């Protein structure tokens, strides 16, 4: 039953990812694009609300149109999906690599290195990261593309959880005999790390990736939602959801809020279900079920 | 309520005092054909398979067997404390009442006052968030309608009896502030504070070092004498029981394979497993383990046909097919009052000396 949920999560995640990567293809199929303004589809006398039910859903506008501008919502969602996924994917990959490197070297080298870094990691774990993610937006030079900035800062703060987990696992593994044996037989340190430890950490890494990806998606979209991530001109799920609030308050049709929300929910839920199933399968103890 | 004596000396052999079991009295604890089966993820796991055992007041009955032989399951079944995943059949007669036949509600008041238990790991068995005194007081007040002050006095008294020095002060300590041996004593105090008729001690000395082991054993036998309770002493170590037990039951794969008095078991073992255990018995003084028994212990999920011991038995070849096909039953040895063994080889002969 639990792996059934995991499988469902994997399928949902896969579908959404494919939709994101095939954004141009899908919008071509629909016959729309995310940048065309369609003033004729919104009712200027009614605060710019789309004509028609469900925010203007019909055969040529699958998710309806954006209030005010009349841009095609389906196109905005799939292009936004692509932005969100790419940023989160890049940030996850980088942060997992950093976290793995830090965690492995801590667990393997030990000594003061482990102590000092351990303190730092512990400290970062309870740190109000979001505040600084927001604050940092102010000082990054404006000539660097926003998606890159976002991916970099997310990675810079995202590696901590991975480092903690990999550290614990490495220490357990290193305590086992075969690592000692490899060292005794004169294999160089680097070879031991890469050749013996890494394969044993594969399961853990799969879990870490599957669980930190949705978290990164949520934060990345969250920053854009708050208006301090991607600029409003780039299609992004967070931006869409953020700008939908105002419309929701003015009583516009909920479609503008619901379509991007459901897609975002599909990514995070899908990946979390998958990650949870992987965690059970690989028997990895993450923070909250470890303590 | 039996008055607790002051902390006295309880060294030496008990056999001088209890040369014969008090057979004229009714046993205070009587297990009859006890069976325990756990619901495992891949089918039922039989842990205890028809154990019959009696314990009389003032008597020490030892249950001996390798780890996994079903000793703890027997103990917990006797207390009615097995998890819901276990099915228990047979009867557990505590002073005539079958614990296994009455609902949990009626068992609760019997625990602690009629039948009590102590565990191997005292640090784990004591609540880390409560003082030692508080835990003893709580236990006492479950069975005695007294105010906190009276209960506290009683706690100090019991702590003193089990040999905690400066008990008036230590009563307010937390378990982690006690040493290993003291924790064991505190746990014993918690178990005997209500003067139980029966005390089950599940490997009470396994986690301790040799000198402390000796002290704890002396304490337990002393309490048995003072309180007139029956002590069921569970251990995987025959050496531990040599000087303290009156009766011994040897368990293998959930069954009793041999039982009898200490002399029966030590001087005339009638089961190859018992003999092997004797060979593997470390000496209390030297604590050196001699020879381990070769082979893998049988378990509920991996139960050999016939005699469960046959894959490890040195005599199986001599007996032949019977050992592999026919399960030997526990039979009274001729010419003895209570020496029983379950072995095809020894039904009509003695075991040769090891």
């Amino acid at each position, binding site marked *: 039953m639990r792996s059934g949920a995991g499988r469902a999560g994997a399928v949902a995640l896969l579908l959404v990812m494919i939709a994101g990567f095939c954004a141009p293809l899908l919008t071509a199929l629909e016959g729309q694009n995310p940048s065309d303004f369609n003033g004729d589809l919104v009712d200027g006398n009614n605060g710019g609300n789309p004509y028609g039910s469900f925010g203007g859903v019909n055969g040529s506008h699958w998710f309806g149109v954006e209030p005010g501008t009349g841009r095609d919502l389906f196109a905005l969602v799939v292009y936004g999906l692509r932005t969100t996924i790419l940023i989160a994917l890049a940030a996850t990959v980088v942060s997992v690599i950093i976290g793995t490197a830090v965690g492995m070297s801590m667990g393997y080298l030990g000594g003061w290195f482990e102590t000092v870094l351990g303190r730092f990691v512990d400290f970062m774990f309870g740190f*109000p990261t979001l505040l600084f993610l927001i604050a940092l937006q102010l000082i990054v030079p404006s000539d660097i593309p926003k998606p890159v900035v976002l991916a970099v800062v997310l990675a810079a703060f995202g590696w901590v959880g991975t480092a903690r987990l990999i550290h614990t696992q490495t220490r357990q593994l290193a305590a086992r005999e075969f690592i000692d044996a490899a060292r005794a037989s004169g294999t160089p340190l680097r070879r031991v790390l890469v050749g013996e430890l890494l394969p044993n950490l594969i399961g853990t890494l799969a879990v870490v990736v599957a669980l930190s990806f949705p978290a990164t998606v949520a934060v990345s979209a969250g920053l854009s939602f708050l208006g301090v991530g991607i600029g409003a001109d780039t299609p992004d799920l967070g931006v869409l959801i953020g700008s939908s609030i105002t419309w929701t308050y003015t009583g516009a049709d*909920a479609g503008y*809020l619901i379509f991007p929300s459901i897609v975002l929910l599909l990514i995070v839920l899908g990946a979390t279900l998958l990650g949870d199933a992987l965690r059970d399968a690989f028997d990895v103890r993450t923070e909250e*079920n470890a303590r | 309520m039996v008055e607790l004596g002051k902390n006295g000396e309880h060294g030496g052999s008990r056999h001088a005092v209890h040369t014969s079991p008090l057979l004229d009295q009714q046993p205070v604890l009587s297990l009859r054909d006890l069976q325990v089966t756990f619901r495992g993820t891949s089918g039922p796991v039989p842990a205890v398979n028809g154990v019959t055992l009696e314990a009389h007041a003032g008597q020490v009955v030892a249950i001996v067997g390798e780890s996994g032989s079903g000793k703890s399951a027997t103990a*917990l079944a006797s207390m009615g404390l097995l998890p819901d995943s276990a099915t228990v059949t047979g009867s557990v007669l505590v002073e005539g009442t079958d614990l296994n036949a009455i609902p949990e509600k009626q068992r*609760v008041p019997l625990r602690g006052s009629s039948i009590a238990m102590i565990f191997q790991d005292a640090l784990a068995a004591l609540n880390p968030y409560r003082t030692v005194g508080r835990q003893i007081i709580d236990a006492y007040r479950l069975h005695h309608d007294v105010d906190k002050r009276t209960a506290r006095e009683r706690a100090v008294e019991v702590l003193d009896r089990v040999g905690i020095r400066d008990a008036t002060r230590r009563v307010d300590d937390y378990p982690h502030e006690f040493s290993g041996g003291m924790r064991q004593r505190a746990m014993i105090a918690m178990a005997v504070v209500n003067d139980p008729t029966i005390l089950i001690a599940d490997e009470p000395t396994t986690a301790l070092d040799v000198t402390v082991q000796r002290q704890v054993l002396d304490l337990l036998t002393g309490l048995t004498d003072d309180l007139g309770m029956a002590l069921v002493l569970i251990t995987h170590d025959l050496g531990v029981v040599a000087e303290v037990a009156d009766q011994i039951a040897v368990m293998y794969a959930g069954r009793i394979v041999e039982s009898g008095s200490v002399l029966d078991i030590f001087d005339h073992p009638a089961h190859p497993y018992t003999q092997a255990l004797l060979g593997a018995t470390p000496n209390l003084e030297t604590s050196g383990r001699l020879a381990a028994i070769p082979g893998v212990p049988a378990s509920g999920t991996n139960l050999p046909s016939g005699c469960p011991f046959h894959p490890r038995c040195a005599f199986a070849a001599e007996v032949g097919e019977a050992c592999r096909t026919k399960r030997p039953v526990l039979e009274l040895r001729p010419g003895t009052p209570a020496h029983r063994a379950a072995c095809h080889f020894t039904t009509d002969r003695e075991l040769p000396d090891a």
Partner: protein
Amino acid sequence: MTSYIARRLVVSLLVLLAISFCVFMLFYSGPSDPARVMCGKPCQPERLTQVKHFMGTDKNAFVQWLDFLKGLFVGRTYGTGAEAAHCSAPCFGFSFDQRQSVTNLIWSRLPVTASLALGGAAVSLLVGMTLGPLAAIFRGRWPDALVRGGSLFLVATPAYLLGLLGILLFGFQLNVVPVSGYVALTDSPVDWAWHLVLPWCVIGLINAAGYARFARNQMLDELGSDHLLAQRATGAPKRTVRRAARRGVWVPITTLFGLDLAMLLSGSIFTERVFSMHGIGDLLIGGVSSHDLGIVVGTALFGAALIIVGNLVVDIVQGSIDPRVRRG
């Protein structure tokens, strides 16, 4: 115990010092000079020099950091003469945009964020500590499946999505609770609570998911523990033992709570936005949009200080409820 607290206090102060140092090096030596923003466009060079001097950004980042620290303890005055602006201790900086000390700004926003975070914390602990142990007691049966499934869902769901869905459902469809705005506790306690019901539930439920999962596993450990078995062996009924088990879950929960303070704060940032409440998160975001470095640095450091002090309190509380924590 006192020396334990003293030691933790010193460590916390050092950490705060280090954070503020890093922040100043990072934010005040970058290329984006806040004076340029203040100066406006077009900006004459002599005007820029004036503004820089007024704001104190003509000094290097390290000196500015020292000025900031000094301001924290004795307050500081920007500029001289008629234009002078005073910022009294503890001075978290000055917003030249709004001509107000950041401390005042934070102070005026604090009730909102505090109401959100504390109420959310209460809901999350209540829900998590009720459902988690319940799931453990019913392990493998439907209440367990429900709690586990529900918490998995909530752990994954971003706070802003849950908030928006809550507004859609309870605010617009069912029309039972107000969906935006904050009413001060001192104005009307009833309206205050009424406006906070939905936000509390959002923050509370999101965080409760973690507590429920954790409390469930912890409760399972407790229920399987020797000390509860030993307690039952003394004749304690199941109910008494379960109560003891629940108490055993509270101690490690406080550790988790300490770690979650930061999450609580971020939860309230999103919730402020969703429910149009003007708390500290809103202040920070406003500072970013208006390029007000004083506000941004001040609120970020204030937030960090809040979390560190919160963790200190949690540590001390834990030291007093868990007898095993070393009292050096």
